[in-house]
């Protein structure tokens, strides 16, 4: 187990270096010139532009820029944005907000998704199973931003139940609406996944055997059906943490949340290479770590799985 863990952690190093290189190359390849864009429609003073380029190393060839970035990143200096803020400060402000949002969305989708999925799966064909199925289909097929705008208009503007936008330093109630919007699609998938797992496990031989041995219906459900049904659900949930953080861009724009998605969006528009690369690298790390945790959880849920 320990050896396996170490190997997985060592594997992260090439993954991270590879992604930073790739993202840096992509940002570099973005057409347009961020320094020229700083001048807007106004005449560009070429000597001033040259001065700014050299300040941000933008006048150097791609690979030199990348190596400078990598060298500085090792000492936790991720560079500065064009408004002279250290990238690390920008991330330090944005990540906690997104993490809060993602955790709330995660709890939302995990609880509601699994509970509704189990109810649906155990009582297939009942009217509430049909209702749950239709609602989940609706959530999957309607794009997030439509759902977000509709909810924002009615709950926020019309009825005034929750704040319209979250703004900075958002609290629980500020994030309640955005988190449910963000988690809604995944919740619908989890409902469907749990439902099909539960209902297929119910017809398995070991469930019939357990019933024949005289186990109470409650312990058959809890110990045998649910435990086995949770393996794919946990996989889904695990990979979803990364997706929730990286995919919060749409939700963050609708509700004006100053998180990672919004920061990344602005960074791309303004051509801020170091900012974009640093954020994406952290997101990659989150993905990799979540995957590792999910793999570890398998062993807990299913004793047949062993890591050497």
């Amino acid at each position, binding site marked *: 187990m320990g050896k396996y863990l170490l190997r997985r952690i060592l594997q992260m190093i090439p993954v991270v270096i590879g992604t930073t290189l790739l993202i840096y190359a992509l940002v570099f390849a973005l*057409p347009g010139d961020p320094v020229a864009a700083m001048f807007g429609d*106004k*005449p560009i003073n070429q000597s001033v532009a040259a001065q700014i380029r050299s300040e941000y190393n933008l006048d150097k060839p791609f690979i030199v820029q990348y190596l400078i970035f990598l060298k500085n990143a090792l000492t936790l200096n991720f560079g500065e944005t064009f408004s002279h803020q250290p990238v690390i400060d*920008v991330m330090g402000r944005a990540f906690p907000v997104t993490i809060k949002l993602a955790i709330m969305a995660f709890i939302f989708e995990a609880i509601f998704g699994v509970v509704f999925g189990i109810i649906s799966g155990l009582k297939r064909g009942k009217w509430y199973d049909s209702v749950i199925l239709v609602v989940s289909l609706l959530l999957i097929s309607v794009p997030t931003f439509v759902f977000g705008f509709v909810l924002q208009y009615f709950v926020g503007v019309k009825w*005034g139940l929750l704040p319209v936008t979250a703004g900075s330093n958002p609290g629980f109630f500020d994030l309640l609406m955005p988190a449910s919007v963000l988690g809604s699609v995944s919740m619908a998938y989890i409902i469907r996944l749990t439902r099909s797992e539960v209902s297929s496990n119910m017809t398995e031989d070991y469930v019939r055997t357990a019933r024949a041995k005289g186990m109470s219906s409650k312990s058959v459900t809890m110990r045998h059906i649910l435990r086995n049904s949770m393996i794919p659900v946990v996989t889904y949930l695990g990979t979803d943490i990364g997706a929730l953080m990286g995919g919060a861009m749409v939700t963050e724009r609708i509700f004006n949340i*100053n998180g990672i998605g919004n920061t990344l969006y602005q960074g791309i528009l303004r051509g801020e290479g170091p900012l974009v690369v640093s954020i994406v690298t952290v997101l990659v790390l989150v993905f990799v770590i979540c995957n590792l945790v999910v793999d570890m959880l398998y062993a807990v849920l299913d004793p047949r799985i062993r890591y050497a």
Partner: protein
Amino acid sequence: MQKSSKLTVIVAGLSAAVMSLSACGGSTGSTTSSSSDSTNSIINVYGCEPQNPLLPTNTNEVCGGNPIDLLFAKLVAFDDKGNAKNEVAKEIKPSDGNKKYTITLNDGWKFTDGTPVTASSFTKAWSYGANLTNAQLSTSFFQNIKGYSDLQKKGVDKKAQLSGLKVIDDKTFTVELNAASSVFPTMVGYTAFAPLPDSFFSNPKSFGQKPVGNGPYKFVSWTHNDSIKLVKNKDYKGVAPAQNGGITFKMYTDTEPAYADVQGGQLDVLEQIPPSALKTFEKDSTVQAYNKPGSVTRAFTFPSNLKHFSLDSKEGNLRRQAISMSINREQICDKVLNGTGTPAVDFISPVIPGYSASLKGNSVLKYNPTEAKKLWAEANKISAWSDSDTVEFSYNTDGGQKDIFDALVNQIKNTLGVKAETKPIPTFSEFRANITARKMNALFRTGWQADYPSAEDYLTPLYSSAAADGKGSNDGDYKNADFDALLTKAAGSSDEAAANKDYQAAEELLFKDLPSVPLYYENASGVAAQGVKNFKMNWKNLPVYQELTK
């Protein structure tokens, strides 16, 4: 994770409690001294994260420019209509045919750190902005001041001063210009000409994060990606004092959530209308709407040597006029912009002194399909328009211009019966890069927001020969000696009305040559929450922040 977040909540709660306690103490003190509640209220207005530190000479975009303009009082201030009034200046006296100005300052002006505003607060600030070593984005505004070119050499000492600025005494300085300019007393009202206190020069970097000014408001804090907070500056002596207790710029990355916040009462003022609300905002009962012609102009420009449209050929001239006349500007303003644009009839704007709707030759901006077809046919006689030729329009898709250009293309197809297409470019930065490198081979979107309210600021930067070939914003490389002569004449004129006559004569030349085709004036349109009083917008398409109360 759980534990630490609980801890943060407790800490945050405690500090919030402490802050509200101290705020209580502060407010009881101030209520005794001031008269009514509404003059103390803080107004929340739409803002966005500045792209650069908050320095007057390094800010050329609205996110940083709007707060900076409230923080610094310049030599002159503009009223809502765009008329310049002396503010810090007592007098700006021209001599030597508008080539030299003697500027006297009013007494008693102070920066919010208590230091006085003197002549050298201006001269040192301008020299800093002009100096290449400081790499300021607004450098080119100082190019007409003598000594500018000396400060453009690589490696120039960062303390080097503009030789054309001379301090006579604490309250007087003179400015020598390279070329006569009658517009100089108006130009010095632009952001880049703000004075700076001595504390700036010792540490520009930290100043950029917490600026110290002399304007109607005083800087409190800048929380990145969140807000910029300003409060009323009690020592301000200028022409537009704050009627409210302060302004907080709440930052957004998009106007959609800001609009929803105005509807819900979480934001007081938004000076833009998101596309989704264009049709409804004037009828929306949850907000107060404002919608009047503004100072931003929208046009498209022809690359100077585009095939069939070249500037120096008879054929190009005919075709440019035909294109302009086949566009139904009323229809675009009505149907596409839902009334948030006003059809253009000149090259400046209705809110700028010098505007006229009756210039000779402006009929070229009127929809006239018969005449357009006739001119196009005439051009065909000079050089045939083959089936493989297409009228192409290029624009950047991140600016929300798609519908307008789709409409343009359709109108041209319908009127002239030729192939027409759009060539969208994803980002503004790529779009501008292509224009700057003169790699555009299609008609391209242009627009202009004046920096100071003068006809000169629309004509010189966009159409003078001195601004062509990449030296300015004359993207179509239009060169006309007669036009330049009129601008020079206006610049040497001592009387504003006479100068405007010359600018109008210059515009009439533009109608003949049509280097670019004006489309519409973007309206100053915005919304305010219910309960906000005195909401109106100025010549710069911005709310008059000082007068807002609630």
